[in-house]
C-alpha cells in the first residue's frame, strides 16, 4: 500500500500535469510557490474538521494528485481567508479550495442538499446565510 502510494507520487503523468494546470488556471495561483511551511494549516479555524490539512491539499495539487477532490476539506472550508493573509509565499489558498470545489460542482456534484435542511431551520435562517451557503456549496 505504502509502496503503491509513493509510486503514484513519482509517476508524474500527463493527467497529473493537466490537473495541476487546471487548478492553477481556475484559482489564478502559482502552486509551485508553496514550500510547505504549514502556516495556512496552523491558522485555519476549521482544520479540526478537515480530513486533509490546507497545506496538504496544496502539496497534493503540486504533485498533480486529485485526491483533494474527494476530501471533506474543500467543503468544510469557510472561505475566511485566514490562510491567505498568513501565507508567506502569497498563495491565496482559499481560491485553490474554490477551484477544487468548482471542479466538483461542474461535474454536478453538490455537497448540500436542500431537502436535508430542517424546514423549521430553513425558515429561520437569514438570507445571507442561505444564499452564501448555496452559492459556495451548490452553485
Amino acid at each position, binding site marked *: 500500500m505504502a509502496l503503491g502510494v509513493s509510486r503514484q507520487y513519482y509517476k508524474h503523468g500527463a493527467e497529473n500535469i493537466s490537473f495541476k494546470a487546471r487548478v492553477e488556471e481556475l*484559482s489564478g495561483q502559482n502552486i509551485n510557490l508553496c514550500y510547505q511551511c504549514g502556516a495556512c494549516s496552523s491558522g485555519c479555524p476549521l482544520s479540526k474538521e478537515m480530513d486533509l490539512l490546507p497545506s496538504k491539499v496544496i502539496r497534493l495539487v503540486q504533485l498533480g494528485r486529485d485526491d483533494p477532490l474527494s476530501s471533506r476539506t474543500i467543503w*468544510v472550508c*469557510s472561505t*475566511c*481567508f485566514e490562510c491567505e493573509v498568513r501565507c508567506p509565499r502569497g498563495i491565496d489558498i482559499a481560491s485553490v479550495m*474554490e477551484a477544487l470545489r*468548482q471542479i466538483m460542482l461542474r461535474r454536478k456534484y453538490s455537497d448540500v442538499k436542500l431537502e436535508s435542511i430542517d424546514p423549521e431551520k430553513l425558515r429561520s435562517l437569514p438570507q*445571507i446565510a442561505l444564499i452564501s*451557503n448555496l452559492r*459556495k456549496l451548490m452553485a
Partner: protein
Amino acid sequence: MSLRLAYYPGCTLKTNARNYEISALASSKALGIELIELPRWNCCGTVHALAKDDVMHYIAPVRNLIRVEQLKSSGLVDGERLVTLCEMCYNTLKRADIGVKEDQERRRKLREVMEEEPPYGGGGVEVIHLLQLIREVGWERVKKRVVRPLKGLRVAPYYGCLLLRPRGLGIDDANNPTIFERLIESLGAEVVGIPFKAKCCGSYQTVHMGHVASELSYRILRQAVEGKADVITLACPLCEYNLGERQGEIRGLFPDLKYIPVLYFTQLIALAFGLEDSVGLEMNNPDPRPLLRMKGFLREA
C-alpha cells in the same frame, strides 16, 4: 449641508438586520451623512466567485455598481462612492468592482451578457464600508456628537473575516485592526480585547454544519465573557446570527456559557448619540435592554 452618498443595503438589512439599517441611517445623519438608498438594487450574491473564469456571478454585483453611476448622473448624490454596511456585501461588491476594472476580457464578456445595461468599468465608483467613512469623518467629530457617553460599558469588538481579508481589500490592518477600538473609545465605552476578534465564526457553514459554527462561535463568545465584556459589537449580519441568534443552541452544547448580548456598532453609536428611537434593540437576541437599562444607557421601560 450634509454629504449625500449612495447606499447599498443588501437583503438581510431589510429583514433580520433591520436594527442595523435603522441605527446606521440615523447615526450617519447625525454625523452629517445622508445615505441615499440605491434605486432598484438587487442581491449582490453575498460571496465573491473566486474562480478566475467566472463571469456569471459578476452580473448581480455589477448591476448594482451601474446603479451608482446612474444615481450620480441624476445628481442625487455627491460623488460615486457606494456605502455598504454588511461585511459580505462590502467584500462582494468591492471584489466585483476590482475584477471588472482589472480584466478587459471579463469586461467584454459582461457587456455581451448585459446588453440591456450601460457598460460598466470606466467610471470612478468606489465601494466603501460605513466604518471607513466614519473614520474619515474623524473620531473627534464622533466624540463631539456623543450626548450620552457609554461610560462603564465594556465592549468586545469582533471584526469577522471579510472587513479585513483578503490582502489588499481590508479596511484596516489584517493582523492588528484598531478601527473598532477607536470607535468604542470615541463613544466613551471601554474596549475588551479578545484574541479571536478576527477568527471566523463559522460563516455560512451554519446552514448545514451547525455544530461546527457553534463550536467556533462558542470560542469567540467565551473569550468575551471571560474578559468580562458586557456586550460584543460587530458589523456583519451573518456574524450576528452566529454569535447572537444562535446563542441558545450554542448553550445547548456548551452549558457553561453565559448569555452575552451582541450589538451592531451602529446601535452603539445611536445609543451614545441619544437616538433612542433608532436603535432597534427589540430585535436583538439575547435582549440587551435589561443590561443597558441597569447601566443607565436606556430609559426605564
